[in-house]
């Protein structure tokens, strides 16, 4: 007879409200915080009491830029006065987020449980934007104002059946799960340009205060359905076996390829629990061997990546429809197969623990945008495809120990390090795929079989021709070619006779080389904490290395138009008798394309990305227990923390960690923060 036992249920929820005052961090926007401030001329002031705004601004016609002050020319590229923009533009958003979970279940027997669970995560972001009418990106349109609302809802339903029984020393646990997950993003915005007065911009769109109306919205959604079976078995807590299989259907894949099967298995042997190990237990308190295999699928592939879609394309004021996405009806699951072999050690009652792992992670059918010939006129000249496979393999070590363990003094030290190698193992057609950034303006990397994914790719730089200041590059055959800084023409270069005119030459795509890998080959951390009486002190040090970074921020600070340069320009070639550092060519106005090879990566700007960071130092003091308890609390601690404290690196940019896929392009650095806080428990 079926006896229904106890019910159980659970509801939890979190509500987060967060106000964010932001910046325009677009990498190429004229008022982008980093882009703009790096380029400001060093000899012009921020303020000018003689202008109507009080800021150093020069306005003429539909052009408003930072003023030239005593210079004879106006700053290039229409760069605005960033302080005015920061003080008068508005980018705010208000985030309200609700995360909730409810589950209820039944204990059918004491070894069989059923549970149903429903979870929801709803975040609503309400934003207001105002690009000031007087100066900055909003000037040419008479001010741009916008209010927007983004509502993201994700919900998740699960049905779980758990079978948990022990037969003697055999412990069995079987879980069956049926799950459905759905997310939807609902976006709407309204606003316009041509404001009546700057006054009406501060509050976001105000009815009837602007002449040109714009509005719009968008909805996207995706869903995942899963069926999962998990089986756990252990014998006397010495031998462990876990196996699982799941079948997932993803809305973002075409009907024929929608479902994928993903198995996994792992085994473990806690050797230290064996009888023959008990004698050395005090020394070797823990020894475990483990191995695992798992196949998983990637669901983060865009919302409708396989469809050919027509979207809105207006002509004049009439609506229109045109192809906006080229589809791929053969798109299928991107999967990742992971193997892991590891061993854990514990010594002296686990006062010292060590572990080591060897892992292999094969990614198959990687989904990426693959360039197609622009002759075909496919939107963005890209189609999502399963382009190939890559392999990551490596070794990880970690250790942790309490060096001192006394009643009033504890000192704990831990460290871990990983060594990883990444290699592309297959590509569709076997042909290289080039990786470009900044809307294809910069060709920086390559995906090629046998190399690390997205390795830097471009021309290898030799140096500066000491006779005339031209930059010199290597061709594929090792010969040297110089590029005329004035005309861009290539001629041969002979290092032993630099003044010779040289014959016509070329530097073409076939001369490009792999300039370095962007994925670190090793990384890890070192942490330590000391607790002495009521004080605690902790530090976290991270390190990483073996990767290269393409420093385009540095390249743009050597640009040849009328904007700021870094001090590196002081070492340029000036004449045969003053050749500078041999690495920075001569300057000629408006010739960045020829002097810095804008748009193509060169080894001149490839730098080592290794670093050691003291990331977190915390010092805390807890009030004595009896004092705290007399006030009715169980703990009261004050602490101070420095984050992002120190970096040791040879990288010349601001922060070697802020590269995106190995490229540093006007990225916004992390700040060093000092915070003070308190913990109180009641």
């Amino acid at each position: 007879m079926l006896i229904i036992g106890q019910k159980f249920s659970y509801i939890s929820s979190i509500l987060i409200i967060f106000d964010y005052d932001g910046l325009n961090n677009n990498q190429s926007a004229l008022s982008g915080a980093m882009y703009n401030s790096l380029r400001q001329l060093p000899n012009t002031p921020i303020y000018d009491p003689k202008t109507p705004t009080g800021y150093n601004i020069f306005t003429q016609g539909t052009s408003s830029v930072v003023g030239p002050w005593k210079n004879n020319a106006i700053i290039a590229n229409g760069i605005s006065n960033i302080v005015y923009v920061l003080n008068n533009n508005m980018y705010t958003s208000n985030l309200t987020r609700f995360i909730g979970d409810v589950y209820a279940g039944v204990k059918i027997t004491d070894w069989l449980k059923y549970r149903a669970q429903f979870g929801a995560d709803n975040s609503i972001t309400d934003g207001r934007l105002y690009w000031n009418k007087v100066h900055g990106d909003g000037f040419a349109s008479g001010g741009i104002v916008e209010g927007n609302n983004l509502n993201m809802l994700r919900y998740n339903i699960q049905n779980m059946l758990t079978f948990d029984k022990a037969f003697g020393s055999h412990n069995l646990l079987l879980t069956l799960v049926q799950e459905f997950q759905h997310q939807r993003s609902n976006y709407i915005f309204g606003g316009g340009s041509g404001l009546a007065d700057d006054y009406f911009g501060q509050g976001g769109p105000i009815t009837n205060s602007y002449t040109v109306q714009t509005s719009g919205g968008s909805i996207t959604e995706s869903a995942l359905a899963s069926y999962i079976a998990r089986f756990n078995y252990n014998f006397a807590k010495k031998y462990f076996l876990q196996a699982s299989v799941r079948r997932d259907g993803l809305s973002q894949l075409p009907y024929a390829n929608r479902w994928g099967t993903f198995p996994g298995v792992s085994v473990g042997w806690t050797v230290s629990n064996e009888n023959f190990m008990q004698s050395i237990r005090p020394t070797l308190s823990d020894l475990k061997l483990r191995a695992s295999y798992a196949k998983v699928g990637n669901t983060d592939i865009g919302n409708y990546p396989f469809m050919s879609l027509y979207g809105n394309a207006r002509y004049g004021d009439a609506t229109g429809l045109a192809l906006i996405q080229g589809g791929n009806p053969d798109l299928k699951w991107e999967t990742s197969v992971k193997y892991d072999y590891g061993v854990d050690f514990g010594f002296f009652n686990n006062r010292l623990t060590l572990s080591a792992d060897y892992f292999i992670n094969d990614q198959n059918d990687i989904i990426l945008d693959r360039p197609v010939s622009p002759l075909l006129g496919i939107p963005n000249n890209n189609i999502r495809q399963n382009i190939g496979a890559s392999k990551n393999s490596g070794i990880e070590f970690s250790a942790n120990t309490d060096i001192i363990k006394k009643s009033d003094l504890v000192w704990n030290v831990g460290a871990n390090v990983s060594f990883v190698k990444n290699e592309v193992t297959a590509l569709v057609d076997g042909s290289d795929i080039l990786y470009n950034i900044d809307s294809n303006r910069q060709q920086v990397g390559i995906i090629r079989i046998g190399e690390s994914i997205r390795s830097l790719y471009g021309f290898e730089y030799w140096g500066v021709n000491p006779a005339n200041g031209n930059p010199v590059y290597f061709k594929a055959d090792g010969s040297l070619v110089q590029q005329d800084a004035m005309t861009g023409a290539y001629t041969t270069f002979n290092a032993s006779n630099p003044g010779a005119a040289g014959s016509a030459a070329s530097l073409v795509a076939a001369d490009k080389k792999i300039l370095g890998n962007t994925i670190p080959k090793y990384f890890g951390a070192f942490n330590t904490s000391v607790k002495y009486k009521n004080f605690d002190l902790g530090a976290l040090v991270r390190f990483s290395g073996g990767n290269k970074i393409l420093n385009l921020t540095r390249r743009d600070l050597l640009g040849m138009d009328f904007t700021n340069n870094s001090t590196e320009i002081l070492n340029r070639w000036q004449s045969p008798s003053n050749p500078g550092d041999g690495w920075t060519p001569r300057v000629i106005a408006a010739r960045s394309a020829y002097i810095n090879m804008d748009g193509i990566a060169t080894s001149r700007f490839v730098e080592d990305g290794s670093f050691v960071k003291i990331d977190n130092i915390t010092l805390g003091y807890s009030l004595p227990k009896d004092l705290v308890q007399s006030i009715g609390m169980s703990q009261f601690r004050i602490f101070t923390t420095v984050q992002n404290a120190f970096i040791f690196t040879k990288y010349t940019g601001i922060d070697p960690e802020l590269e995106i896929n190995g490229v540093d392009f006007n990225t916004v650095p992390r700040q060093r923060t000092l915070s003070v806080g308190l913990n109180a428990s009641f």
Partner: protein
Amino acid sequence: MKKYSFKLNSKLKNIAFGLGYLVIALSSTSCSDDRLDLQPYNSIQEETIFSSPALIEQAVMGMYNAAQRGDYAGAGRGYPFGAAYHQQNDMRGEDMVNTATFYQATYMSAINGSATLNNVYYWLDTYRLINRANLLIEGIDKAVTKGLVTAAATNRFKGEALFFRAISHFELLKHFSRPYQLTGSELYDFGVPYMTKGSTDLQTALANSDVDRETVSASYVKVLADLDAAEAALPSKGTSTVYRIWKDAAIAYKTIVKLHKRDWAGVIAEANKLDGKFSIEADPNTPWANNAGNKESIFSIQNTATNNPTVNGALASMNRGRLLIAISPVIWNNQMWKADDKRRGSDMVYSPTAGATANRKYTNKYKDDVNRTDASPIVRYAEVLLNRAEAKARLGDPTYLADLNAVRNRSLANVSTQAYTASTFTTMADQVNAIVTEKRIEFIGEGKRWGDIHRLINDDLVPTTGIPQKFKNGVPLATNYNPGTPYVFGAGDIAAIPYTDRRFLWPIPDVEVNANPKLKAQQNKGW
């Protein structure tokens, strides 16, 4: 007994609760297969687009959108025909000056295949427009076969698509291929890949990518074939809007293409078809003050306050608002342009009164730099007349003068004393020179100069030798502008580049040759 039944009741309640919950939970997720068939909200799947006349009209608008705005790294800057046509063609010539860095790469011919996006996107966005035209033609054909629409109702749209396809390929020929007349020259005889099939997904893309550049004459044949087919399919303009393509636009463009082919009789025959359909306005400013209603414009691209090539592309923004393109002293000082010509007046030329750009000359044809609503002119009747004038002059026909004067006299301050007469020019070279110079003066800021430079390389009468010598990059001095005193080139000005230099033709962009090995083998000489 009572106790037992109470317990049983609570047990039953539990069973009921548990099973009920199970049923609800399972049934709400069991049909997960349709739950996974999610259709997009923001866009329509390709299968439904060409299924009704209304939707086909929407696709036509989508094609015009590609001509009007394009996609320049995510922004619509008027590539190819909304603004780039005018700006890039003029920046390659010597009659307009680039005053800052915006068009410097094109102006100084400092191009490479990847970083100078002006020419990269010229290629990309022109082929983007061509694909939309091809998809429209194929979609209409399929819909007619299925009986969803009639051929009579949709032929006109096919004509519009054929026109765009022809002028797009012709535009690419002007920048990426050798001039038609330079057969057997050191420049390679490569035309441009002539795309006649649409691509919508990976399978059609792979099927259509096996094309090569063929020869220049083969490309010209196809351009003219498309324009002939467009002429046959399109109705006459009459009083219909100038913002759509009509039969007259196809005919007018044929005068241009045949001029490049040096088919003088062909130019005259085509131009004659437009007699009486258009006329030259009395005031040279009328086409600019009245984009939609003037009698001269044959086809212009429409721009509106909420849909235009933006502050970074719109003609009014670049010429008048941001003052990034100035009229060059080279043409301003040309002696054949009378000092009191109405085209120097303040309604056609903008000259700031104060500040760093005071008294410099900028074109005022595009007047709305706040809302950027000026139309982008593609072809107007004055060009047809000047084309016919040149063809007639080269055939020794003295009636060329009527056409030349029709365009020129309305701009003269004093027609009786300043007009050309039969005795003004005695040699054919002088006559053609007068016509070509008049075109330079009349079409300042309209993107016509480069076409003439390209087609006149090594001409027998008025040869050009390559990219001409130009005024230096930057804002000219007010003192550089002296009507009647020819500008003398000096230090700092940009030297002429012979047509044998690799920079005369633009390189096929890296993004194309990297994806297309066939074109990589057919790259332009020296690139």
